[in-house]
């Protein structure tokens, strides 16, 4: 017995790498960087999983995907079945396989990581989802008995899409109201093509539509209709999945100079409006030779990597703490480094300087040092007095975070908000202070992740069904 165990350990293959586009080539295009597993590498990677009877990885997953279950099916080369198994709990595996922070969720707790590298759960998830899609028609669930009740979903990000899909499957008549002209939320306007191809998002949206969900784009709730008016139109429950779409700017002199963008504007122009295809597409996006992106999260990495592809000669990340405190995924930091991004740590802007035409020409930066950990557990940056210096740049992107957009919320006088302006809702059910109104995703949690927004949506859909069945609030 002991002998056998030892033998097995020896045979374990190393964690399988995923091929990626060569950095030199990929900075010239917007195609996806990671190219995915082949069938063979997927099976080898899956074989590394020991299919723990009490799998730790599942506890790490916000929606409790049956990870060893699907990996076992990959071992048996039942790829389509594996994808279907994931979909029982996670309806967007092709997206999550690409953008979930597995390294802090399921993979970090994988038992293998104690002795070796963890199983590449995300890469396997991505592989089976793509395999199923490539294999042809995605099977639709059988048509449910209609409930004869209408539900309105505001916002078509991962939270809204999940709620809509789940309720449609239960037989509700669901309408999604989306402010922009394209559905998908951050998945279409924020996350770049080279990390998440928009064709994949479109495929998932299409699936939700095929379930019978009606999609109304160009519909800004709070302007064209208020939530009260939606109730009057016969919607019996409303789910708010508005996201955290309000860009924060730095309150510094010169912040409105030409050439200073919010990450939202920068990414929206590039992703949603396809400025990277200008002039084939009409929307322009101007980047100078030297671009600086202020911030250290995923949004900053996406912005800086977009700017390289738009032709910037020199690109910098300006971050006020050190590399260790950066909230971006390790993989994205590595990708940025490979693409030639220069990281400037422990500096913080205090002023933006313009030329005669009002364009940014430089910033004033202040050097920082690290002090005691703050509320977030990261060491607090402390300014070093008198360390100011001028730093040339022609484009700056502010990627220091987003908040709740008050546009719809300000029209709902009885909706309780927390002190940061996010909706106060029960994290188990999504129930808010207004009867019949549920909320979930970033508009409740603050900036989080795709999978958390989905998980929230899923829980809310169950609560909405319960509410509409029992009429108890």
């Amino acid at each position, binding site marked *: 017995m002991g002998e056998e165990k030892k033998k097995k350990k020896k045979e374990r293959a190393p964690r399988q790498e995923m091929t990626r586009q060569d950095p030199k080539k990929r900075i010239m295009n917007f195609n996806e960087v990671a190219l995915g597993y082949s069938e063979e590498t997927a099976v080898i990677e899956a074989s590394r999983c020991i299919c723990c009877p009490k799998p730790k990885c599942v506890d790490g997953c916000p929606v409790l995907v049956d990870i060893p279950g699907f990996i076992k099916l990959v071992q048996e080369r039942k790829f389509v079945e594996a994808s279907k198994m994931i979909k029982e709990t996670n309806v967007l595996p092709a997206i999550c396989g690409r953008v979930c922070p597995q390294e802090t969720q399921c993979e970090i707790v994988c038992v293998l990581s104690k002795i070796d590298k963890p199983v590449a759960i995300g890469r396997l998830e991505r592989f089976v989802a793509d395999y199923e899609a490539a294999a042809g028609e995605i099977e639709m669930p059988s048509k449910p008995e209609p409930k004869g009740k209408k539900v309105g979903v505001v916002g078509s990000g991962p939270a809204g899409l999940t709620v809509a899909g789940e309720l449609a499957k239960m037989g509700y008549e669901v309408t999604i109201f989306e402010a922009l002209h394209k559905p998908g939320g951050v998945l279409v306007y924020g996350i770049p093509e080279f990390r998440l191809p928009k064709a994949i998002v479109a495929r998932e949206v299409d699936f939700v539509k095929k379930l019978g969900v009606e999609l109304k784009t160009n519909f800004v709730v709070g302007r064209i209709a208020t939530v009260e008016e939606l109730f009057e139109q016969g919607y019996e429950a409303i789910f708010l999945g508005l996201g955290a779409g309000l860009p924060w700017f730095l309150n510094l002199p010169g912040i409105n100079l030409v050439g200073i963008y919010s990450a939202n504007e920068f990414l929206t122009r590039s992703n949603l409006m396809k400025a990277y295809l200008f002039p084939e597409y009409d929307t322009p996006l*101007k980047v100078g030779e030297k671009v600086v992106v202020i911030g250290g999260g995923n949004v900053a990495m996406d912005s800086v990597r977009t700017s390289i592809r738009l032709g910037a000669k020199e690109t910098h990340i300006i971050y006020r703490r050190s590399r260790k405190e950066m909230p971006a995924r390790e993989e994205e930091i590595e990708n940025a480094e490979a693409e030639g991004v220069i990281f400037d740590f422990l500096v913080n802007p205090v002023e933006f300087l313009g030329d005669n035409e009002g364009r940014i020409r430089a910033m004033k930066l202040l050097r920082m040092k690290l002090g005691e950990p703050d509320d977030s557990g990261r060491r607090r940056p402390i300014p070093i007095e008198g360390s100011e210096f001028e730093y040339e740049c022609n484009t700056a992107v502010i990627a220091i975070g987003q908040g709740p957009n008050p*546009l719809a919320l300000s029209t709902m006088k009885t909706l309780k908000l927390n002190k940061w302006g996010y909706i106060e809702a029960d994290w188990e059910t999504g129930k808010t202070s207004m009867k019949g109104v549920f909320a979930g995703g970033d508009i409740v949690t603050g900036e989080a992740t795709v999978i958390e927004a989905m998980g929230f949506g899923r829980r809310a859909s169950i609560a909405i069904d319960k509410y509409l069945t029992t009429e108890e609030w």
Partner: protein
Amino acid sequence: MNQIVQKKRIAEGINLFEIEAPLIAKKRKPGQFVIIRIDETGERIPLTIANADKEKGTITIIVQVVGKTTEHLGTLNSGDSILDVVGPLGQPTHIERFGTVIAVGGGVGHAVCYPIARGMKDAGNYLISIIGARTKNLIILENETNAFSDELYITTDDGSYGRKGFVTDQLKEILDSGKKVDLVLASGPAIMMKFVCLMTKEYGIKTIVSLNSIMVDGTGMCGVCRVEVGGKTKFACVDGPEFDGHEVNYDLLLKRLATYKEEEKLAYDKFMLKTKDK
């Protein structure tokens, strides 16, 4: 959806479109605008809702050709559709009975002024309208404005119609006449609004301007439309587009409007080349 039911050329390079948009027609208030995108490769551009017909379910926009998108729009005719029309956006004008209101519209800016002026008249104000343009062919909505204005003045830079001079010349004359004026509305080129406001500030008359900053989403999500009002940053699409004209930083507005000058020219030239080929 969003079908054009009527198109009219109402002045040189200025087109009027009546578009099917029943929900927006019902909901919109004076001062609000829509954002349109003509087709899949198109840009999103903001346009004021100049008029709306609730019964017919249509809105009217009046558009001056200044670049690629407005030129492209000008090639569309009744029966054609616009891919995306979203609105109503922006804060409606605060309309009440102020007393005497002067509405100053410069060029196509009068299309922005027009619905607000009408709202002011409907609220019982004594309404004086001033329409200004470079030349006679560029004057819009004269008869329509005349129909509800208590007084109407026209100015042209070249004197081809109405008074020769700028809108500010006419405005000064009225203010100097000793008439008690309670509010001035101004919409037009940033430079015109700047000079109107310099003047009304001197006379101590509250002035509301409608700003035309560059926009993308129109919902407060991107921040490209930021303007400085009273030293504070505001988003024109959600906090405006109307602001206290005495507090606006016009120089910043002008500079930000010029952000994409080169790219706009490129897009325009490319479009003209393509239409010439056809």
